[in-house]
């Protein structure tokens, strides 16, 4: 007796059509679910590596650690996401180790907090940084004769979202610090961002070599304003990235 139902070939075609149809209902862009979120907050420098030192002696490592702790507290209280600090005290942690900690702890967002430093004390302001395809593309690596190792390709799928996170944080800073100079959003080859398997940004919310900004950074309320702005940037980014991922 001859089989009259769908042939095996036709069944595969049917399944293919159904799968294509289903993809139309997938959320556009980078979807984040609340239970999977792990916000990695990286306080720059530490230990013997003081980072930039202000004209009055304030160190970048000290301010970054304080800001990272404040951002973590705000997320813990306000959003309830899992958070992870790459360092929670004054200790030296290599950049490679920071990347490893973020990846091994299943980080979904990476925010590295630093401060700017310039050889001119009149320069002040805030800036945002992410790594761009231009610094990661396998084509450019082949030109150099060095094939890009797998480890250095971890950021490639996340570049678009890294850029969007940098833009979101930047917009919040522009709104909240209208009196400060906007140093912009820049694509730069930051180490170890190539190895981070999650959207990643580096923020320099103030310039420590400016005596004016060093004075502000000594004040508790200025630090709280910065931490609040970073928190708000993260909240907005997650809200835009995944529906229902943020408590309204």
């Amino acid at each position, binding site marked *: 007796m001859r089989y009259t139902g769908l042939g095996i070939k036709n069944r595969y075609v049917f399944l293919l059509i159904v799968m294509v149809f289903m993809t139309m209902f997938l959320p556009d862009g980078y979807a984040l679910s609340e239970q999977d979120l792990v916000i990695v907050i990286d306080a720059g420098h530490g230990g013997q590596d003081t980072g930039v030192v202000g004209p009055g002696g304030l160190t970048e490592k000290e301010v970054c650690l304080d800001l990272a702790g404040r951002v973590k507290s705000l997320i813990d209280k306000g959003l309830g996401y899992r958070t992870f600090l790459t360092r929670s005290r004054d200790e030296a942690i290599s950049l490679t180790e920071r990347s490893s900690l973020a990846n091994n702890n299943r980080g979904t967002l990476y925010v590295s907090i630093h401060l700017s430093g310039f050889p001119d004390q009149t*320069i002040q302001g805030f800036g945002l940084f992410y790594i761009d395809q231009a*610094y990661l593309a396998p084509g450019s690596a082949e030109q150099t004769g060095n094939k890009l190792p797998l480890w250095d390709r971890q950021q490639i799928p996340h570049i678009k979202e890294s850029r969007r996170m940098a833009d979101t944080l930047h917009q919040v800073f522009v709104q909240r610090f209208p009196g400060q100079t906007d140093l912009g959003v*820049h694509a730069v080859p930051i180490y170890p961002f*190539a190895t981070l398997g999650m959207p990643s940004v580096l923020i320099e919310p103030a310039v420590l070599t400016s005596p004016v900004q060093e004075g502000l950074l000594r004040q508790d309320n200025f630090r709280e304003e910065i931490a609040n702005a970073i928190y708000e940037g993260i909240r907005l980014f997650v809200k835009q990235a995944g529906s229902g991922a943020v408590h309204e």
Partner: protein
Amino acid sequence: MSEQGKPGFRFLRLVSVLVLILAAAGVLYLVMQKSHAPKKDKVESVYMPGFPLYTEDMERIPIELFFPDKNLVLKGENGVIYKSTDPVDRMRQVIVLLLKGPRSEFLLPVLPEGIMLREFYLHDGCAYLDFQVPASRVSPMGCFMEYLAAASIQESLIRNFPEVEKVKIVLNGMEAETLFGHIDIRSPFQGLKAGG
């Protein structure tokens, strides 16, 4: 006869005047010597190998050095180097000038004091720069300034020397992950943008 009229006293006074004149002449001579002395070239403070990169009788050629301005955008500053026989020596001169910093007060120095050029090689279109950096260095600049420093080096070499296609930096004779804790220098770079 008064004391002042005695021959012994007059002789003593004459000797004192002569000693004073001689001392004044000596001081004047030393001051003049100092003002006419050639200003100490800072090359030896930024260039380690010490072998001469040029001779004074060589022709001079114009070059353009790149430094960030206070708006953090790279700007060109005209300079002059000697036309050394070996083109690599001309490239070394450019890096020496870059290390010495800009002449204009509106431009920013790109590398902090204490950093020296240990060596410079050109191989297969890639300029290899080996900087001597103090072991006890701390990050003197943030991520943005560090990026601008790398971009300044890149632009100052690539724009003046068509044979340079990319730049690779090593520190203290060894491979390094970053220049000063932020910018990835593990691979040669060529596409750093002037304004980030």
